[in-house]
């Protein structure tokens, strides 16, 4: 068979990592665009908006990183 087990492992890990990055990219991009619009409309609230943006970005990133860890585990523990 031309497709070995390790090839499938690597392919799955790479595909999973890439999909997770797409999700996180859309999430953080939307978040940053909204936050920048908010700051542009209300510059005096910039500090508070920035803090909330970092916090929410961390939450979005956390979910994506869990997927990345799963991808790393597939490669390391196969």
């Amino acid at each position: 068979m031309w497709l070995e087990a390790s090839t499938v492992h690597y392919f799955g890990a790479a595909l999973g990592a890439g999909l997770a990055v797409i999700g996180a990219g859309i999430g953080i991009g939307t978040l940053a665009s909204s936050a920048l619009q908010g700051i542009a409309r209300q510059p005096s609230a910039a500090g508070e908006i920035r803090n909330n943006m970092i916090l929410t970005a961390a939450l979005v990133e956390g979910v994506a990183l869990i997927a990345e860890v799963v991808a790393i585990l597939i490669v390391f523990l196969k």
Partner: protein
Amino acid sequence: MRRWLVVLLPVALGWGRTEKEAVPTSFILEHVKDSYDWHITDMPWGRNPDGSRHYIPIVIPLPRILYHPQRGVSVFFVHGHTEAEIKAELEKHGYTLGADGKIAAIDCEPILDLSLTKTAFQLLLVGMLLLWVGRIAAKAYQKNQNGVPTGIARVLEPVILFIRDEVAVPNLHHHADRFMPFLLTIFFFIWLSNLFGLTPLNSNIMGNITLTFLLALIAFLVIHFNASKGYWSHIFWYPGVPVWLKLFMMPIEVIGMFAKPFALMMRLFANILAGHLMMLSIIGLIFILAAVLKSVVVGLGVSVFSVLLGLFVMALETLVAALQAYIFTMLSAVFLGMAMEESH
């Protein structure tokens, strides 16, 4: 362009082959994993009889601490490098290497491996450094009564005030002072560990999931030992909704209770691990490409990009080191504030 060719051509002709040991995958894995000794680097030292380079490892040996139910605790150092050497030395003390690579007793008794590993040692090192710096800062405040910080306290004061005014007070209100020691310890410990991981000393403290698990466990315990009555009632018997919805909400809320510290653990671990892997992969690309294409010119060409990109990633990682410490502290404070909120 021509000048570059003049420089590179003799290089390419002279050393057309790179050495076999240059492929760095095992090197990257060794950095990421925990180990029984602190292997800092290898120093090239002369040549072996067969003409290949000889390397002297620069290693800080760490003690193996093993507990055997009958023989008690034994502490010793292992100096071997290959598996056979390590096994022979372990057998002198009545232990051996099991099939899974872990240490086992020769008489097959279940033993406890409490060895001081690389991560544990660096953890203690960072902790002691933090204790020392903190003591100096505290003494500086005791000495002068006018409140103007001196020495290292001048560096720490803005950071501590930032944690108090931006993290603790907005989330914990009048409880802020009670939890400042917790938040400051977490913040400085994670920050300093991350910065220590950026030095070329082969250190990967927060990229170890056991350690981030323990930090998240501490945060979990602090949050739930200080939780108000309202918090528990929101988890187990959500007020103000019909009974079928109460029953439906309960498992979701219980999962949420554990999901928060789990996310804390994963975020810190994956961020630091990803940073270290990225850094090593970018620099390792030089050697991988040079070895695969068997050409030093490719290695030199790639190294220009790799070093510039590596520099950029390093700058990014310096930011991430502080950012992840801030985020862990901030989220702990947010969850704590949510748990301590009185019901209304």
